[in-house]
């Protein structure tokens, strides 16, 4: 077990190095000089050169790459070009909002999705089943940002129940509801389908048939036996979804003016604030792979039959 964890952690290093290198290379190849962008139009060549020197852009690429890697190895992400403060601060300031949104979305999806899935399985083959299946299909087929705009129109503009985007002064609850709802649509669809199919599978298992034969009430069968068995595949899906959502939901964060990390990185890309882009992407990748490792371990704990060299997956905005 310990060997497994160590092996997986060691395997993270080349992945993180690869990601760091690709981000660095991409941001180097992408046209657009950060110093020029900062200076704005009407700036003299002398001003731009001074900015380049301050940012260290006057050095040759290989030297910049080497400095970048050396800093990274020491856990330093450098200073933002634009904000002139440590990238770590910029990231950690935005991450709580992203975590909050992702957790809320997964929580909503879990409650709605599992509930609907159980309902569908319980009334398998009748109209609640079809209804749930149809809704879940719609859920996974809807463009998230479009849903967000629609939710704003209905709940904020027409009904006036909830604020139109924003984060509030100190993160009040009501600001969280709409973005979390729209972000949860796809996950809800997946969760309900997974719950339904694993329930159906379990319900046909021999031990359930035996339980039925012994006259145990259907409710207890569902609650005790089926739910526990359905939890195994669900954990994986919930985990991968959460890991994907932690990567930031740029479009959702933009629509709802949510101060999350996805938007911060996206803005940094547009402004060519290279240290923020590099640091942000590496941080997110780190969170992503660590979350996946945690899922695999959790899975192992729930169901020890699983083979060790595990799996992981993605889940994201679209």
């Amino acid at each position, binding site marked *: 077990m310990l060997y497994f964890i160590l092996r997986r952690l060691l395997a993270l290093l080349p992945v993180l190095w690869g990601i760091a290198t690709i981000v660095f290379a991409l941001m180097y190849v992408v046209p657009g000089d950060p110093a020029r962008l900062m200076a704005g139009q009407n700036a003299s060549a002398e001003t731009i050169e001074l900015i380049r020197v301050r940012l260290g852009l006057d050095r040759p690429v290989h030297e910049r790459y080497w400095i970048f890697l050396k800093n990274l190895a020491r856990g330093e992400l450098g200073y933002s070009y634009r904000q002139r403060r440590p990238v770590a601060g910029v990231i950690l300031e935005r991450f709580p909002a992203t975590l909050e949104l992702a957790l809320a979305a997964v929580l909503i999806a879990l409650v709605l999705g599992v509930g609907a899935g159980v309902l569908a399985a319980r009334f398998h083959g009748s109209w609640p089943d079809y209804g749930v299946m149809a809704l879940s299909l719609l859920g996974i087929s809807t463009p998230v940002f479009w849903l967000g705009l629609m939710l704003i*129109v209905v709940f904020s503009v027409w009904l006036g129940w909830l604020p139109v985007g924003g984060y509030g002064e100190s993160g009040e609850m009501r600001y969280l509801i709409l973005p979390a709802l729209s972000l949860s649509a796809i996950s809800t669809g997946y969760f309900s389908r997974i719950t339904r199919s694993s329930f159906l599978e379990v319900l*046909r298992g021999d031990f359930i048939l035996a339980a039925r034969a012994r006259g145990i009430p259907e409710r207890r069968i569902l609650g005790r036996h089926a739910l526990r068995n359905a939890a195994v595949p669900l954990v994986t899906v919930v985990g991968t979804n959460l890991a994907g959502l932690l990567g930031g939901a740029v479009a959702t964060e933009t629509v709802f003016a949510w101060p999350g990390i996805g938007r911060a990185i996206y803005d940094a890309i547009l402004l060519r604030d290279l240290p923020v882009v590099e640091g942000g992407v590496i941080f997110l*990748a780190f969170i992503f792979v660590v979350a996946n490792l945690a899922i695999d371990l959790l899975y192992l704990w729930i169901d020890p039959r699983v083979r060790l060299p595990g799996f992981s997956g993605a889940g994201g905005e679209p």
Partner: protein
Amino acid sequence: MSLRAYRSITLRIGLALVLLLVLSALCAGLLAPCDPLRVDVASVMAPPSLAHPFGTDYLGRDVLSRVLYGGRISLTVGVLAVIISGLAGTLVGALAGFAGGWVDEVLMRLTDIVLAFPTALLALAVMAIFENPTVGKIFIVLGLVGWANIARLVRAEVLAVKERDFVTAARSVGVSPLGIVIRHILPNTLGTLTVALTLGVAGNILTEAWLSFLGLGAQPPLPSWGAMITEGQYFLTTRPWVCIFPGLAILLTVLGFNMLGDGLRDVLDPRLNPRGRR
């Protein structure tokens, strides 16, 4: 009604939807009432009418015609991207699964890297670096992002099939590794792959839509659905037709491919069907 009946209904509806959309995109020239690019300053933002059943947009262009032609872009982007990611993913996955050892290790780390990489960053970089054609850029992005999942899937399938009796038998008879992969292993992964690729088309169309929303999608004047929604958002409360029709088109198309994928899974991959076990 049984589950299988539901599944086959899913397959039928999905297939019907997809066929309908493909046909209408192919025959857009016949079906569209107007030239989708014709600007008419005199009737800007006109509500739906007989002449313009879906209304007109900010340049007076017919929304119905644009939605019909837009299907070509969304479908082309979705399908071509899936072909790219399918080919690359199968290649990488099969190689990793069959070769094992350090090849497997390296290739899987590579897929880890791609999976952990933000799509928006890749999109921006590709948009900026690659020259035309512009629709080309967007499916390159989607293809680049999509192959990693396919590779994982194929690798898992290959690993599962590799140890089965018929493969061991073929190997003992002296069939070359390549021959084994092509003749025995790949056909066995085809079911999973078809399902994944069909669902991939749906995912790609959604991704194209949100990239357009961020301003990174297909280029005008080509009428892409994502770009049309992006334009339509400005009139969401006052002139909803500009936003609603392309939105519905996306919804229907993605729904069609999702249902098709679900149905196909049922037919091609009985292991995933609870009924199939008994």
